[in-house]
C-alpha cells in the first residue's frame, strides 16, 4: 500500500506540472477546539498551513467545524461538507491522503524536577508509577503504547484520561499533560504533537522523550506519518496539494517546530510503518 501510493504520487506529480491548475477552493473540516492542530480562532498549525496553502494556490479557505470524534470522517469528508482535513495518518481508509508532511511519535512526558528520564517500556520503575494514558472510547481499542504496557502486565498502573475530555474546556485532550504538571500521574504517554505543544507552554518544566520502538514487539507502530486527507478519489486536489507540500516543506517544518511539535525524519522504513 505504502509503496504503491508513492509510485502513484510521483507519476501524477509529473502530470500535474504539465496542465494549468484549475481553480480550487479549500473547504476545511476541523475540530473547533483542539490545539495544537486547530481551533475556531484559527490558532492551530493546521489553520496556519491551510491559510498558507490557500494563498499559494489562490484558493478561498472556508471552515466546517466539527469535533473530531468517532463519526468525524463520515460527517465531514463523507457528507461532502468539506474537501480537506489538514491532518490525518497517511493511508487512513476514510480518505485519500497526500504525501506525508511530518512524522511524529508517541512520547513519555514527566516533570523535569522528577528527573525520571524514562525512555523504555521495560523500565522497571514503571511498575510502581502511575502512568497516564488516553482512553480512546468508541469501538476502538487502545493506543499502541497502552498495548505495550498491557503486554507487560501493567494494567494496574494505568490511569485513563478520556481523550474527549470536557467539551466546555479549551483543548480537552490536554488534560493528560496537565495531569503530569499537577502530579495526578507520574508519567504520561501521549501523542507527540499534543505533548510537545502543551509541555512547551507548561509553567512546570516537563521532559519529553520520544518512544522509538517496543523491543518486544517490533511491528507495533509508535510513530506515524501525517498527511492531508481529501475525499476518497479526489486525486486532482491531492495532486495539487502534493505540489504545495513539496514546495513548502521547509516552511512547514519550521511552522511545526514553532509549535513545539516533535518531528522525526519522514517515512523511516524501520519498525512501525503506518500500515
Amino acid at each position, binding site marked *: 500500500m505504502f509503496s504503491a501510493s508513492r509510485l502513484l504520487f510521483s507519476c501524477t506529480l509529473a502530470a500535474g506540472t504539465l496542465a494549468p491548475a484549475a481553480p480550487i477552493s479549500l473547504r476545511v473540516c476541523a475540530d473547533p477546539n483542539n490545539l495544537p492542530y486547530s481551533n475556531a480562532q484559527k490558532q492551530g498549525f493546521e489553520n496556519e498551513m491551510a491559510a498558507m496553502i490557500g494563498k499559494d494556490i489562490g484558493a478561498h479557505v472556508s471552515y466546517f467545524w466539527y469535533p473530531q470524534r468517532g463519526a468525524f470522517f463520515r460527517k465531514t469528508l463523507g457528507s461532502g461538507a468539506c474537501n480537506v482535513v489538514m491532518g490525518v495518518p497517511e493511508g487512513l481508509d476514510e480518505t485519500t491522503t497526500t504525501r506525508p508532511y511530518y512524522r511524529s511519535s508517541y512520547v513519555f512526558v514527566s516533570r523535569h524536577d522528577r528527573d525520571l528520564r524514562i525512555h523504555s517500556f521495560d523500565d522497571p520503575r514503571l511498575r510502581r508509577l502511575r502512568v497516564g494514558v488516553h482512553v480512546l472510547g468508541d469501538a476502538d*481499542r487502545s493506543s499502541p503504547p497502552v498495548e505495550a504496557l498491557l503486554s507487560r502486565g501493567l494494567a494496574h498502573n494505568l490511569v485513563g484520561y478520556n481523550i474527549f475530555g470536557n467539551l466546555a474546556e479549551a483543548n480537552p485532550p490536554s488534560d493528560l499533560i496537565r495531569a503530569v504538571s499537577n502530579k495526578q500521574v507520574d508519567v504520561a504517554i501521549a501523542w507527540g504533537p499534543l505533548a510537545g505543544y502543551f509541555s512547551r507552554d507548561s509553567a512546570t518544566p516537563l521532559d519529553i522523550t520520544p518512544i522509538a520502538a517496543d523491543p518486544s514487539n517490533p511491528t507495533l507502530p509508535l510513530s506515524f506519518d501525517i498527511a492531508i486527507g481529501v475525499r476518497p478519489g479526489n486525486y486532482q486536489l491531492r495532486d495539487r496539494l502534493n505540489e504545495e507540500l513539496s514546495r513548502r516543506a521547509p516552511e512547514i517544518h519550521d511552522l511545526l517546530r514553532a509549535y513545539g511539535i516533535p518531528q522525526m525524519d519522514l517515512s523511516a522504513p524501520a519498525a512501525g510503518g*503506518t500500515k
Partner: protein
Amino acid sequence: MDRVNIAKAVLGGVGTAAMVIALHAGLPLLAAQNGGKTASGGTMDVPGALPGIHAVAPLADGQWTTPAGDYGNLRFSPLSQIDTKNVQNLHVVSTMSTGIPHGHEGQPLVVNNTLYVVTPYPNNLIALDLTKPGFPQKWIYRPNPNSQSVGVACCDIVNRGASYADGKIIYNLLDAHTVAVDATSGHEVWRTEVGDIKYGETTTMAPLVVKNVVLVGDSGGELGVRGKLTALDVDTGKILWRAFSTGSDADVLIGPNFKPFYPKDRGKDLGVTSWTPGQWKLGGGTIWGWVSYDPTLDLIYYGTGNPGVWSPDMRPGDNKWSITIWARNPETGQAKWAYQVVPHDAWDYDEIMENVLIDMPWHGQTRKLLLHPGRTGFMFVLDRETGEVLSAEKYEPANWANSYNLKTGLPDIDPDKRTHIGHYTTDICPSSTGAKDYIPSSFDPRTGYLYIPAHNTCMDYKGSKVNYIAGTPYLGASVRMYPGPGGYQGELVAWDVANAKKVWTVKDPDLPVYCGVLSTGGDVVFYGTMEGWFRAVDAHSGKILWQFKTASGIVGDPMTFLGPDGKQYVAIYSGVGGWMGATALPAISNDDPYAALGVVGAMKDIKAKTQPGDLLYVFGL
C-alpha cells in the same frame, strides 16, 4: 381517508367485553380500564390467558400511557377487535410526517383522545387530535435542545419515547435533559438537566414514571460516560436520587437491604474494587433501555450497558456494575438485588434489554418471573423477588459461552472467543449488536410465548486499521460483522417460556429484525422489518396474515389503542436509523465494512432496500 366511515364499514361481530370500553377524560396514570379483572396484589387475569398466568396490572387497554404500554413491559394489549380473521382488512387511516429523516425509534403515546409523538433530535413533541378525521395536529412543542448533543451521540440522534403521568408528557432530550410538558396545552412545565453533554452524556431512553418518581437513564458508554439512573419528582422535576452503575456502595445506592442471590455479586464497594484504580470513573454501565415496575414487590427493574473503555485488557476485573440487571426501590433508589450477567465483558454485550415481568407456573409452582432476552444470545428467566437465574438457554447462535451455571450465575466462557489487544479473534457469535438490541420483545399471556425481535450476526476482531481521533493516530481493532450460522440475518422468534424453546420463527434473510413487537388479545402479533414491511402474524403459528409496505425501514415499536369511536387502531413509525439502521443514512458509506462500529458489514444491502423516512402510520379496520 375518512376514518369514521371506515369504522362503520367494519362494525361487525368481533366484539368482546374487553373492547366495549368508554374512554374517560382526565384519566389518572394507568387507569384501570383493562378488560380483565384485577386480581389481588397488583396482578390481573387476562381474558384467554393460559392457566396460572397473571400479568402486572393494569395492561394497556385503550390508551397507551407508558413506553411499553404497561409496567411489566409485556407490550400486550387485550384489545381484540383486530383478530386473525379480519386483520387482512387493515388499512392506513392516517399518516403524519415529522420532517426529520432519522431513526424513528420507540412508540407514540395515546392519552385522552390525543396521540403524542416524540421526534428524533430536535426532540419535538407533536400532539394529534384523534377525535377529528385525519388526526390533525393540535400543537407542537419545540424544546430546542443544545445542538452540541448531535456531535456526541454515538448512534444516530434517536429518542425512544415518552411517559404520561399527572397530566404531563415526560420525555428526554438528546442533550441530557428531561422535560415535562402539559398534555393539554403543550406548554413546558419543567426541564431538568440529568447529565452532562460536556462529557459525552446524552439521553435517548424513554423514562418510566412510578408513583411520583420519574426514572431516567443515560447514554454514552462509548465515550467513557459513567452510567446512572436518575429519579426526578414528577411535579417539579427536582432530582430525588441518583444510582450510579460504578463506584462506591454509597454512589450505587447499595445499603443494608441489598441481597444479591449469588455470592459473586456480594461484597463491599465492588463498583470500585472490581476495577483497576480509578478506572470505574470511566466505567460505562449506561442505562439506555427500558425500566419495568412491579407494584406488588414495589421494585423497579433495569439493565446496565457495557463497561467503559472498550479494551477489556485495560480493565482487568469483573467491572461491576456493568452488564447488570438491577432491582431497586423506586422511591429511595436502594438496591434489593443485582445480577451481573457478564463479568468483564469483552464483546459489548450491553444488557439494557427490557425486563418482562410475569407471574406464571414454573416447574409446577407459580413464580414471579423476570424474562430477559439477552444481547448475549441467552434467554434469561429470573425469579424477580430474589434475582436467582432459573433458566438461561440460547435463542440465537451464540458461541462466546457454552452455557450458564445456574448455581453460580456465571457463564462458561470459551476463552478462544475472548477479544484481546493485538489478537485476531474470529467467528464470535453473536456480534456486538447482540442476538437482539434494545428493540423490545412482547409477552402474550394467551400463548405463553415471548416474541423476540432477533439478529443473527457474528463478528471478527482484527487489530490493524489506522485510526485517528482528536488529533491522535493509532492502530485500532476493527470489527467486521456478517450473517451468522443459517445464513439469515434476522428473525422474529416465538419463545415458549415454560418449555424454554423456540416454537416458530419468521426469518428475514437480509436484515436483522430491528423493530419492537406488540401482541394483542386478537391473537395477532405486530412487528416490522428494516425493509419497511409492517406485519401482522398469527400469535400461535407465526403465519403472516397481513403486511403493508411502509415508506422506510421500521426501527420503532408498534402500539395499539381505542379511538374515540371505540375502534381499535395500530400505530407504527417508519423511519430507518439508529445504530444498525444508520447505515441507511446518507453520510455513511456502505463500502466500508468497518464503519458505524462495524455494523455496515452486516447491513450492506440496506441502502438498496430502503431510504430514510420520517412517518407515523396509523392503521385501522
